[in-house]
């Protein structure tokens, strides 16, 4: 807004169109409005603060200080000695344990030995070690772990801890979430436990869910929108689909336990989980797909019919291609819900401890939320850090999926 300046020497110009009293009333009205605007903003601040607190808490829980008395070499290696980690660090560690070069090559070239070494040791780039910062540490599951401190707790008394170290003891700042966490199977020892089996299980389940729920959901939506007669029965189905979307997920778990695990005898397998979760997300998929189909303007349908298209030609060449963005978004959001679903899977037998990759739809499995839940339930304080690392992985995957849905909507959405 530009202000009008008075010519010099003139009387000050009036700035109000109202009388004194009415003006005061207007000011009061505006103040009330401002107060309400401020009140509506409070929940937003509260929500943002809560989310930030959650993230900070989980992230700091993935760090801990540990006083360790190593069982093997107990040496740390500079990052520059083996910039890519992996086998190079393994060689350094084995030679520090006193093995000869030929013995080391024998271990590395034997796959069985390699697997055993990897199952028992975790190669980590630790932020802080006794020998300096950013060094490779090979943590052995048989190391004696003497003391454990949370990130802030250990930070406060670091000087005392460092002074109290006995001979051969080390103190490390352990980042529980590193790349090897994603590539390790689960283990009874927190330091070598990884989330690989759970990620694989989740991928299997999600893949099968898409396979089941996409054709069923889109088919049902197409039928209800394009083919079904508009009568009481159709309306009854519509209302019930909306109701089903609100049924608690544990109820679907009970249904899955009875129907798929017991009656159809699928057992506690990936197939049972995928079918049960498909049922769980189907109502949401149908609702989203129907809305996408309904958003295709009827003028396009009429144009197609007017050119002599049959119903199926119109549906397949005009309606579906123009609804595909909305349908995809709905599927992605539903899948994100299925990935985070825990309760029904506990009922239908996701396993807490699976140290191997699933081999097919009929193998036993675990998924990420179940894995996190079982880690938290463990009686070892270090598993709490492992669970935090798992939560970060799960949240990251969900964030990526929501980002993908947002991108798809932005990229392919059309305004008519």
């Amino acid at each position, binding site marked *: 807004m530009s202000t009008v300046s008075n010519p010099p020497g003139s009387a000050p110009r009036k700035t109000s169109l109202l009388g004194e009293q009415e003006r005061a009333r207007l000011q009061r009205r505006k103040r009330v409005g401002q107060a309400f605007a401020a009140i509506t903003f409070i929940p937003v601040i509260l929500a943002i603060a809560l989310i930030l607190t959650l993230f900070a808490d989980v992230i700091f829980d993935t760090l801990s200080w540990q006083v360790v008395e190593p069982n093997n070499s107990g040496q740390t290696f500079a990052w520059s000695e083996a910039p890519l980690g992996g086998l190079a660090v393994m060689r350094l560690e084995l030679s520090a344990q006193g093995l000869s070069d030929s013995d080391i090559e024998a271990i590395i070239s034997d796959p069985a030995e390699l697997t055993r070494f990897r199952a028992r040791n975790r190669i980590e780039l630790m932020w802080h070690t006794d020998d300096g910062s950013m060094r490779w540490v090979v943590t052995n599951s048989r190391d004696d772990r003497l003391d454990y401190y949370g990130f802030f707790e250990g930070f406060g008394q670091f000087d005392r801890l460092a002074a109290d170290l006995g001979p051969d003891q080390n103190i490390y700042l352990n980042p529980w979430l590193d790349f090897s966490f994603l590539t390790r199977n689960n283990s009874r020892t927190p330091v070598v436990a990884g989330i690989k089996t759970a990620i694989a299980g989740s991928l299997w389940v999600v893949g099968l869910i898409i396979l089941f729920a996409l054709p069923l959901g889109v088919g049902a939506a197409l039928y209800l929108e394009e083919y079904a007669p508009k009568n009481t029965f159709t309306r009854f189905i519509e209302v019930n689909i909306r109701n089903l979307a609100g049924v608690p997920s544990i109820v679907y778990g009970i249904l899955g336990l009875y129907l798929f695990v017991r009656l159809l005898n699928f057992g506690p397998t990936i197939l049972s989980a995928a079918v049960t979760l498909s049922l769980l997300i189907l109502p949401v998929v149908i609702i989203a797909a129907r809305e996408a189909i309904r958003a295709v303007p009827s*003028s396009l349908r009429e144009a197609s019919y*007017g050119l*002599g298209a049959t119903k199926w030609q119109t549906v397949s060449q005009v309606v579906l291609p123009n609804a595909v963005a909305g349908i995809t978004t709905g599927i992605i959001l539903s899948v994100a819900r299925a990935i985070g679903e825990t309760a029904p899977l506990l009922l239908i037998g996701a396993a807490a401890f699976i140290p191997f990759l699933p081999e097919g739809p009929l193998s036993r499995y675990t998924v990420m939320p179940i894995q996190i839940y079982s880690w938290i339930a463990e009686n070892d304080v270090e598993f709490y850090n492992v669970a935090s690392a798992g939560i970060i992985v799960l949240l990251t995957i969900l964030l990526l999926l929501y980002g993908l849905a947002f991108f798809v909507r932005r990229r392919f959405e059309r305004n008519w």
Partner: protein
Amino acid sequence: MTTTSKQDPKRDSNPIHNFNYDHETVRTDAQSGDDVAVGVENFNLWYGDFQALHHVSLTFPKNQVTALIGASGCGKTTLLRSINRMNDLIPIVKIDGEISYEGVNIYDRNVDPVEVRRRIGMVFQKPNPFPKSIFDNVAYGPRLHGYDGDLKDLVERSLQKAALWDEVKDKIKQSGLGLSGGQQQRLCIARAMATEPDVILMDEPTSALDPMATDRIEELIHEIKKDYTVIIVTHNMQQAGRVSDRTAFMHLGVLIEEGPTDQIFTNPKHDMTERYVSGRFG
């Protein structure tokens, strides 16, 4: 609408307010039967309980432009959409009577509406190109029917007939939605012509366009009538006067008067037609 107000005798005598649904259509000339493209015979149509068309009888001669005029809600669009059975898409529509095309009653139980629309094309009020390329828009109809000739040639010919080819020949692969409103409407006309129909129905094709674009569409209608029978619904009486050979005036679902356009506009026989074309109501 059949008000019988006692206070206003002038209003009572006004046929617009005291309407006779059994009105017999005034026909300005006798139509010979042999050059008829589409014949409507005692056609009634209901939306649920509401009767939208009352015993309409009308013939549309071949290779002529017939304009349907009348106030909003008079049933002219409903009549137009009945001619290629677009009203079948509305579940609550019931019909009675006959519409014949080349001697076939298109509402016969054994006639497939898809066949009807194949021969009787339609252009809508609002330009509605598909969100596809210009080429794919025009090729949509021929592809539906399994056209086995040279598709590129057919698309080019259709666009040329719609006087759009010169403007779009360099961007034939671009989206049809990128064109201006008038170009989009000509694209829709090209699309309708690409299926090689005999009759083209136009539902207020210029109501969403500016005067320049309207002028081009009207020129186009003049051009294409040597190949097609055109039936056009319009709100614009000047337009009806400019483009049509014959005009039919409807009111409240009843066909009031029909005849050669110059007759209807200069020497209407029915009082209500005279009031409408002179702009005293509607």
